[in-house]
């Protein structure tokens, strides 16, 4: 703030520019996904999202003449428009796939048997013929046209409000919360106690325990899926919320303990020793001194754990979603929307933005703790 213009060092500018470039690099795919979420499947297949932002001249796929026929002056006439959008400009058109640009706007094409077709620059067409078109296959119109950007809310409507999806989506949302909140709180509670003990209580084998926790960080959770599920089935938990909470807790604990322990070790020794001298028990020290001071670390781990459980599909599939399908979660619901062969791109883009909403909220609400927590234990 108190910098005067022109006194900024070159280094500051370099930092700013590289931060800007990094942010742009990170945001680029997200923007693409966001734009795609407002486009139809056919649009996504036909052109890239970047070309949808401005008016484009393209050779468009064939559009079949349709409409009710009128009898006028002994001729049968079908009138209609090629495009719903208003400001489309047709620059050439044709009726054969071999010559899609055979005619200029307002020109009349002779289709044989006295039938004629005219397409104007704004995309209106008139088909006339001496006989009724009833039961006949109507001609196709190929056109090269400049179309304005076109976006649709259809995908969002489909994901959020379609009667067949809405119920499932709402249920999945609350199921996900049911999984996520306890699966975030339980490991924090357990880890905070453990981290205090590992940081400030002296007992034999403490270093070994810490080493074991660090070692557990590298164990991939996939390794434990089937044995753990078998164990749950044996002790009677089966598939359900309790199982998924326990699984998330177990898989999250090594990181939680490690992170919190490193942070707590860095707290000033004087305060804790003073408290000991004043006769505080370990529990009192933990509750009255350590917990309030460790808040940034707790919050940052909470964000991590929340995001990870919110976006999780694998653990939920293995430990939660049973054959009745009552306990489906958001991620699973989104995968289902993709269809049997997974081709519904537009739904994927849209669902990504629907499901991103809650994590974003959590992130912005707690972001100030995130950086402090990230640096937990690394700097003093």
């Amino acid at each position: 703030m108190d910098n005067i213009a022109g006194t900024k060092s070159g280094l500051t500018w370099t930092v700013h520019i590289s931060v800007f470039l990094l942010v742009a690099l990170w945001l680029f795919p997200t923007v693409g996904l966001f734009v795609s979420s407002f486009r139809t499947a056919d649009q996504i297949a036909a052109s890239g999202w970047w070309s949808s932002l401005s008016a484009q001249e393209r050779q468009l796929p064939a559009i079949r003449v349709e409409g009710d026929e009128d009898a006028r002056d002994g001729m049968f006439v079908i009138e209609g428009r090629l495009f719903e959008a208003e400001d489309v400009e047709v620059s050439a058109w044709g009726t054969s796939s071999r010559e899609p640009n055979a005619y200029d706007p307002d020109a009349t094409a002779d289709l044989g048997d006295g039938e004629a077709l005219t397409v104007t620059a704004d995309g209106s067409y008139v088909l006339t013929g001496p006989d009724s078109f009833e039961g006949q296959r109507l001609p196709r119109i190929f056109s090269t046209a400049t179309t304005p950007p076109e976006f649709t809310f259809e995908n969002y409507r489909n994901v959020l409000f379609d009667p067949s999806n809405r119920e499932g989506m709402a249920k999945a949302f609350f199921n996900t919360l049911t999984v996520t909140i306890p699966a975030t709180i339980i490991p924090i509670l357990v880890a905070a106690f453990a981290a205090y003990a590992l940081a400030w209580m002296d007992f034999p084998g403490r270093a070994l325990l810490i080493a074991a926790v660090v070692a557990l960080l590298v164990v991939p959770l996939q390794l434990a899926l089937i044995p753990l599920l078998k164990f749950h089935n044996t002790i009677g938990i089966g598939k359900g919320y309790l199982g998924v909470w326990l699984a998330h807790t177990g898989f999250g604990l090594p990181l939680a303990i490690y992170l919190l322990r490193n942070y707590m070790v860095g707290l000033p020794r004087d305060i804790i020793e003073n408290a000991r001298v004043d006769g505080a028990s370990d529990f009192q020290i933990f509750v009255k001194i350590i917990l309030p001071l460790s808040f940034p670390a707790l919050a940052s781990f909470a964000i991590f754990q929340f995001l990870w459980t919110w976006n999780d599909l694998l653990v939920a599939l293995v430990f939660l979603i049973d054959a009745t399908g009552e306990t489906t979660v958001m991620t699973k619901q989104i995968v289902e929307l993709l269809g049997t062969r997974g081709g519904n791109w537009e739904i994927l883009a849209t669902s990504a933005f629907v499901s991103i909403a809650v994590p974003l909220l959590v992130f912005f609400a707690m972001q100030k703790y995130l950086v402090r927590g990230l640096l937990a234990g690394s700097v003093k």
Partner: protein
Amino acid sequence: MKHVLFAGVAVAALTAGLANAGSHLPFNPGEGDFNWESYEAYAAATDLGGEQVTVFGPWLGPDQVVIESVLAYFGEASGADVKYVGSDGFEQQIVIDAEAGSAPNVAVFPQPGLAADMARRGFLTPLAEGTAAWMAENYAAGQSWVDLGSYTGPDGSQSFYAFPYKADVKSLVWYIPENFEDAGYEVPQTMEELKALSDQIVADGDTPWCIGLGSGGATGWPATDWVEDMMLRTQPPEVYDQWVTNEIPFTDERVVAAIEDFGAFARNDDYVAGGAATAASTDFRDSPKGLFSSPPQCYMHRQASFIPAFFPEGTEVGANGDVDFFYFPSYEGKDLGSPVLGAGTLFAITSDSPGAHALIDFLQTEIAHEVFMAQQAGGFLTPHTGVNTDLYVDDTRKALGEILLNATTFRFDGSDLMPGGVGAGSFWTGMVDYVGGKDAAAVAAEIQSSWDALK
């Protein structure tokens, strides 16, 4: 204004609810040309009294809505509380659930190879006695369907484990009749004519084929269908059977010749839209869209009966519609008849219960096939000979069903029958390598060595 809006929303919500309730059973029992006698007879004979039957399958989205409506008839008739869950990771999920002992009552297998594997490990319950005999009698080419669902159990004995229900036809070429008319092309009746037509299109300055092999982790599978089709068109069906069971090795010259026959299409830069090199990177779901672009990127696309789901919105399929199909023809010079390649899904019991067996019984009623036939989503085809084929949702579907009923030689997708490591592994990757320019004999040798490693 606000009130109007709220009222509108309320009305919309109410009617939506009504529509939902109506779609529970899409056809009222007793109405239409359905075989309701089979439904009534089944309902009278079965009473599960609220027993829960869980079904796990690969269908999602609109397909899921349809299979749920079919299962709703089962629930209505038997009194069972039937639940369906779909997953795109069915193949992995069912193995995890079976291993851990939390499997659903009935699982719907898209691949016989996986079902056979699970039967061998004792995760499947053999179907009731008489089911196989019923199928041999009531399905067209019945014995081949029975063979598809018969596996070796954990004790080494052969039983009928999986009930094929819902089939796909694979030997189809999709094209746009009007584009053919514009260019003056005729639908080819023989493989010789098909190759001549492809050359003709190239000579006219266009590209005949759209080929896309991309499919995420399953990239390469469309090429295996091509090779299987070529195998059936160059060799008698007995050789095909020996090939899928590895009685003759992958390196056999007849197999290599079939791969090269596929290469004559897919490795020809003039034949493939975008050049042969793009085939492996083009997604199979995007590939048919080249037919519809202007100017057309290609004139023909070989793919199974499910592909219309990936045509642009509003595309009408049929002889008078926007797009149609013809049978992927056989060589006139080889005299091997008209072989048809197909695939099917199989219902197997993964957690034994009376309700699970009752569901398999339900699949033997005509009504279980007819209510699925009469719905658009799912692309249902059935080889059941006792159903009213007029109930197919449109003429195209009916024509596809006829192919299934009239096939002189019907063979299943060979890659589905091979062990998973080959049919869903080295065969896929090998075909990608082959299209990428690797020698056919070298690719075949690699696939064979991966098969040997599994023995």
